[in-house]
């Protein structure tokens, strides 16, 4: 082959390599990124309370609705409720906390708590019992006049549910979810005083007399802790008018602020990786609650996650079923069919789990959390988790990985576990699962985040954090390269692609200079992260600020 032919072949090959890829249609307004939405517009009339029927919910979610939904041919769809940076703006559903700033250890320890523990404000007046759960629950008012719900552990599993509830509540709060104001409390039976009109309520809602002897018998059945004291979790009654659970599909029709179908909400879908990390398997509609609150003359609905007492492997121990977190409980026809046709020969991922026999620790380990995408909540009826895609899970992972071991330990310590080994074990396990989860999702979505455009000489450089390097997740800067290619708004290449080594300290890199398109500078920069075994891209949309002419990031589109 002649030299000219070789050159021509090389040019053709190069042109082919550099040809315009299939450019996703996403284009962004040249405007600041939205960091909060206004879903606090006045709702003068409280939306209707939604009853929850567990069997009906599971039947619909497992049998009927999947059939009818399949006939509706819903297209696969990326999550909504995200801003131009693929993040979730603050709303009545979610408030960015550790995802956008460094929380102090004390902030995590305090979490959602506002009023302080009722333990220092005894005696407590008992008004009524709580029905609908096997463990004892009592509605009380402390000496300050603040209402709480007291929930007890099952006597066979001391400390497990109360600790899990408080620990997970604090971690979810730090992630950004709205959780309840909860405390582990220790007290003696004499701290409980029955109100004159105290009533024992049965499952039908009928009220019965609540004599002291009956209360004492209930308390005896909960098991008495060290020093003859009782242990419970005191959950401050959520302010406002409670409206019941949050539908997992569609919107609350009578709330005009509720405009994004819940199965498409990023904050709910992205909870997958967080709940998988915490093994919060009890993700049902009724473990969320809406409350209609007043705020400066307006009323609107706020959305809470509640009831985390079955997290951290506690559902495994209280139900004596190690499949939780690996198979649906309600029931998992897929897992049953798989086990049936394979005659049980194949080893299931839940087999071999173990946890040390320490009071307060459920069947919760890190060794079996090898496939964070295989984690399952107890029911497949909760659609946001079912619809969650890798981008949602990546979003959750980049939040959860920001917890330091000290912050996790602070949350665990809030569980007031009596055995220090329990604190150590749960902290270590949570750290192990945290890193497994982040490593997994950062290998499936380009783990670059916090894009900015910074001046570099006479031009500009695109800067970002490589989360796998920032958090030292088996990724090495020396083995990491970033390939940059620029396109104009129409998707036509601008200039030639260039490759850069990860250069910055602690995972922060800047690449460039950028070649911007003429005019408003609208440029789509494809950043491909190349590491052994990984080549993942993100499209970063850049344009000149109309006021300053300085280039800035106006949107990203993860591939």
């Amino acid at each position, binding site marked *: 082959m002649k030299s000219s032919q070789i050159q021509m072949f090389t040019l053709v090959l190069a042109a082919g390599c550099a040809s315009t890829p299939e450019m996703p*249609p996403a*284009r*962004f*307004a040249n405007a600041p990124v*939205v960091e*909060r*939405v*206004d*879903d*606090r*517009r006045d709702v003068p009339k409280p939306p209707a*309370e939604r*009853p929850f*029927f567990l*069997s*009906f919910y599971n*039947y619909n979610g497992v049998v*009927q609705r999947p*059939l*009818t939904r399949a*006939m509706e*041919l819903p297209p696969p*769809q990326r999550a*909504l*409720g995200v801003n*131009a940076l693929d993040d979730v*703006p*603050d*709303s009545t559903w979610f*408030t960015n906390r550790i995802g956008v700033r460094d929380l102090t250890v004390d902030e995590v320890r305090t979490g959602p708590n*506002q009023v302080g523990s009722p333990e220092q404000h005894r005696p407590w007046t008992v008004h009524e019992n*709580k029905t609908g759960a096997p463990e004892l629950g009592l*509605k009380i008012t402390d000496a300050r006049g603040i209402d709480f719900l007291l929930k007890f552990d099952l006597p066979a599993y001391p400390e497990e549910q109360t600790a899990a509830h408080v620990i997970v509540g604090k971690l979810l709060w730090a992630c950004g979810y*709205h959780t309840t104001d909860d405390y582990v409390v220790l007290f003696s039976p004499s701290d409980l005083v029955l109100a004159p009109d105290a009533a024992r*309520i049965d499952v*039908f809602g009928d009220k019965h007399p609540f004599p002291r002897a009956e209360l004492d018998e209930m308390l005896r059945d909960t098991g008495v802790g060290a020093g003859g004291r009782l242990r419970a979790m005191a959950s401050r*009654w*959520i302010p406002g*008018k409670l409206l019941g659970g949050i539908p997992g599909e569609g919107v609350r029709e009578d709330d005009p*602020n*509720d*405009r*994004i179908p819940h199965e498409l909400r990023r904050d709910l879908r992205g909870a997958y990786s967080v709940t998988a990390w915490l093994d919060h398997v009890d993700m049902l509609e009724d473990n969320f609650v809406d409350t209609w609150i*007043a*705020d400066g003359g*307006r*009323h*609107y609905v*706020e959305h809470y996650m509640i009831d985390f007492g079955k997290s951290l492997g506690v559902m495994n121990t209280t*139900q*004596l079923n190690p499949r939780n977190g690996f198979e649906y409980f309600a029931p*998992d026809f897929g897992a*049953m069919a798989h*086990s*049936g046709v394979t005659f*049980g020969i194949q080893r299931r991922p839940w*087999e*071999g789990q173990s946890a040390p026999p320490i009071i307060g620790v459920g069947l919760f380990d890190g060794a079996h959390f090898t496939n964070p995408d295989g984690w399952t909540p107890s029911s497949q009826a909760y659609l946001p988790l079912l619809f969650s895609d890798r981008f949602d899970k990546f979003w959750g992972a980049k939040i959860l990985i920001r917890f330091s071991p000290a912050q996790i330990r602070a949350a665990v310590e809030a569980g007031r576990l009596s055995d220090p080994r329990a604190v150590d074990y749960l902290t270590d396990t949570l750290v192990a699962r945290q890193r497994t989860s982040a490593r997994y999702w950062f290998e499936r979505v380009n783990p670059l985040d916090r894009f900015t455009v910074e001046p570099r000489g006479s031009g500009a450089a695109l800067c970002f954090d490589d989360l796998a390097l920032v958090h030292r997740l088996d990724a090495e800067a020396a083995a990491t390269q970033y390939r940059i290619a620029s396109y104009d708004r129409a998707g036509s290449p601008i200039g030639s692609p260039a490759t850069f080594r990860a250069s910055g300290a602690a995972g922060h890199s800047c690449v460039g200079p950028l070649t911007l398109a003429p005019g408003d500078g609208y440029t789509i920069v494809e950043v491909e992260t190349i590491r052994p075994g990984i080549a993942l891209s993100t499209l970063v949309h850049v344009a000149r600020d109309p006021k300053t002419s300085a280039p800035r990031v*106006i*949107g990203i589109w993860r591939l």
Partner: protein
Amino acid sequence: MTVYESGLKIAHAAIVLLAATAPPVAAQPAPAPAPDAAAPRGELTATEVAGAPAPGEESGRIDVPDRDSAARRTARAVLYVPKVLVEIVLAPFQLPIWAYDRYHLRDLYYRTFYNEDRTIGLVPIATYETDFGFSVGARFLATDVAGENEQATVSAEFGGSYHQAFQGYMNSGDRLGDHVLLELYGEYQKRPRDIFYGIGNGDTTPRPPVPVDPYTTPVTLRTRFRQRIERIVGVINARLFDDLYLVSSNERGDRAYSPAHYGTPINEVFDTATLAGWPSTSYFYSELALRFDTRGRYNLFEPGPYLSVGTLAELWGGRNLRFNDNPDYWRYGLNLQHFIRLGEGPRVVALRFRGEGVSGSLTDVPFAQLPRLGGPRDLRGYTTDRFRDRVAAVGSAEYSWDLSYNVAAALFVDVGRVYSSIEDMTYHDLRCGFGLSLRFFSETSFWMDFTLASSVDGGVQVTASFDPVYLVRPRVRRR
């Protein structure tokens, strides 16, 4: 217990109408009304977010939103009618489930049919078996009669293998400690369609022109006879050591037989005048059994009724004293079970052998009390009581594995036959049944065994049994 649980569902469905009049109630205590509470600390306020984009307007996207393709919209329109049909078809399932939750039917059932402590109650019973059909009934039970977990039950059942069945049972619970359990059982049954195939291990034969003597003429044909049973059984279970038990069972019974009004009556094929025990027999039976039983579950994370480890070895023998100058005879037998746990779930290989024999000649033993094989427990894949003779032996190998926590599957092979005597025992002409079982249980209770079985001789047997196949305790009561 299985009957109890499955019966619950039937009862719940039955009282939907009753419950439909109940007022709606909230599942949780009413929330404290505090509509004027302020926004929580640290949260944004309405004032702070005023002017921000509304939800759905935060993306910054300016491209044309994705729209469904015309093909998808067309297909969706086409599927609309089938979707509505599915909803209509499934409505009969959906509605009762909704009512179950909405009106707390389970609790309503307990409130209606149980005392507050749920120690006294009424339980529906339902069974199904090929060749017999469905039976329904009810059981009154008390699980703590005198404060030491003494149990007492009274039940009535109709249909299926019964015309009428009335049974009563009580035991001493923990009254005598954990080493001694006394049981008393009585029953009156009218069974209109029990099966008699003749004597021996023979294949089915053509119908003879005239009734024959089953002891001398090898005719094998399914016939039906009526049986009335009146008996009372007393049992003393003594735990000698950890896993070693001595069980003394004593039974006083009367049985009367007559041709059935269903299927082929027994007297059209067999000369009933030649049948031992026909038309009635009275007896007193006393048995002693020595049982070594280590069976159980491997750990707490596996359901209690799902046996996965251990061994059962039981040797038993008893004397049947017949009244009215009829000859007495001995019964004896051996039960062996061994469970090999292969893995978590659990996956289990279970091996089982049961042998039973009687002394005396065939004509000394009432025909209905000869050792038998066939049915949902012994030699599955064959009709109930397909074979009977002086000796019966059956071995079983089964592999079972969990499908979920509450459901297990089992593949089994049963091999066995009846013999005219122990000396005649041989490996020739063995009968072989095989099949698949689905078993349902909770952590503490066995619910149901649904078995689909066949045999090398053909035929399909479907049974829904509420007793686990490895249960040995009520053997005397059941015989």
